[in-house]
């Protein structure tokens, strides 16, 4: 099977976020990593490759720095990749990024399966899977927690997560685009030999123009800000022992819940 996984670089969400001029985060304070959900997609692809053969190709759109995350996927076992490095794509909206990824995928010829994470931790949009599928003319399915390959390898049976612990089981013909939910597997850690090999794997750099991808956004960003809540918690101060004592007292005598 020829499997493509879309991987995105995102900030570590435990970083200290600072907003500059209402419009961007101060990246000097940020550590970056691979989007968590994408790790599950990479693992799912590797497991399919181990069973059915073929190759796992990573496509990514992001600044040069993000090559580190693609190489992380290589170290896990992916074969090679394409990175769209283009400031116009980075500045674009979900549609522009999906166009870049789609055109990178198109340059690969026929593929059997494309996978993304359910959403990026930074943008939380969850649009890439459906947009790429539409551009490919392929069916899509989101929030996938189980994948089984049909006997002829021309279709999949997938579990789509629903509310409250329900799954919907569906057949979907290939080629298809899936968004992978966390928990579908336990993503492997790269091994030392894996990390060594990853350095030598092919990573092509492309611009939107190289791929013929649109950089015209359909949405515009206005501004960003920290959320303001009307009901902030009463923060209990002091060292752990003092705070714990105060909390237990409040739960017993003020809230009366224990």
């Amino acid at each position, binding site marked *: 099977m020829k499997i493509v996984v879309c991987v995105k670089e995102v*900030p570590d*969400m435990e970083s200290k*976020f600072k*907003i500059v001029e209402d419009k961007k*985060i101060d990246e000097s304070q940020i550590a970056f990593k691979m989007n968590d959900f994408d790790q599950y997609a990479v693992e799912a692809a590797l497991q399919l490759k181990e069973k059915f053969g073929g190759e796992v190709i990573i496509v990514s759109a992001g600044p040069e720095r993000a090559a580190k995350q693609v190489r992380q996927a290589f170290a896990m076992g992916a074969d090679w990749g394409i990175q769209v490095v283009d400031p116009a794509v980075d500045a674009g909206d*979900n*549609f522009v990024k999906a166009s870049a990824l789609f055109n990178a995928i198109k340059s690969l010829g026929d593929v059997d399966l494309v996978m993304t994470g359910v959403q990026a*931790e930074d*943008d*939380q*949009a*969850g*649009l*890439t899977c*459906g*947009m790429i*599928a*539409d551009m490919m003319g392929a069916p*899509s399915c*989101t*929030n996938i927690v189980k994948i089984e390959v049909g006997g002829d390898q021309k279709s999949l*049976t997938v579990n789509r997560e*629903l*509310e*409250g*612990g329900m*799954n919907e*089981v*569906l*057949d*979907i*013909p290939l080629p298809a685009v899936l968004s992978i939910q*966390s*928990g579908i597997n*336990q993503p492997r850690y790269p091994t030392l030999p894996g990390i060594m090999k990853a350095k030598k794997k092919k990573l092509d750099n492309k611009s939107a123009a190289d791929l013929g991808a649109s950089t015209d*956004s*359909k*949405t*515009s960003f*206005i*501004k*960003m*800000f*920290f*959320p303001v809540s009307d*009901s*902030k*918690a*009463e*923060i*209990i101060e002091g060292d*752990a022992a003092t*705070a*714990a*004592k105060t*909390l*237990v007292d409040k739960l017993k005598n003020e*809230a009366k*819940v*224990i």
Partner: protein
Amino acid sequence: MAKLLVIAEQRNGVLSEASMELCKAAKAIAAGMGAEPAAAAFYKDDSVANEVAKYIPEVFSVVDAKLERYTADGYAQAVKAVVDSQDVAGVLIAHTYDGIDMVAKVAMSLGWGVVSNCNKIEVSGGKPVFTRSTYNGKIQEEKSVSTDKFVASIEKGAYDKEEAGGAGSVTAVSASIGDIRTSFKEYVETMAGSVDISQAKVIVSGGRGTKEKDKYNDIIVNLAKKLGGEYAASRPVVDAGWTDAARQVGQSGKSVTPDLYLAAGISGAIQHVAGMKSSKCIVAINKDPEAPIFNIATYGIVGDLFEVIPAMMGEL
């Protein structure tokens, strides 16, 4: 007048609560846009459309046996049919599992700009401004669309449910629903059996910050036992296999409303909060003072749960 169109969501013919929230949102937003709130309902008969009509003045109904169950292909075609036959200024979809599954596809089939996972839509100078959570809920952003019309999905709980009581009109829209490429096999329950945490008066819940299975057991499980309550978890703990799926709280797990919900090492992502925000008293213990959980907690301790919880145990 142009319509602001809610896409009604149903499972087994039952209208979802998220759809009622969308009706409320559409009524709040439509007037500023110079539009009227309306809905589109898709099912094997008119029953869902008639139900939606209790919440919104006008409903467009596409009836087709292929629409008995939600499918992305079926819904995208049905939305297109309604948009082609009516003057629609914007489409509102719930940011639920089905909504997430269809929203990009619907937007692409219409060629409109899409803003997903919104928690507020306000109209400024006749144009909608979309507010949404980013960076795990730590930062909010505002967006607009560059196209004349838009598709937006709205986070569950962002708007209150509209009250039933109206008697809206139902208009049939004919559509030829073509190829549906996915085929439904069955629904499966992944949390069957085992414990029911939804009845507990006290719940101690651990998240990613509990670090590993042994520590989760040592800290979270033991505190729950000491308080005579149940232990629970946020998604990452269940994903990692540290506890059973039946103990997962949130959108994809259980909804709980105990007297005391103690969240330790849980950042408070919206998917988790959806399952516990109605608890009577919420305690948050987290090292990160900016964790969104502190926005909904009653009491908070900014600190290391591995120090605070053992100290609490000593006080009990």
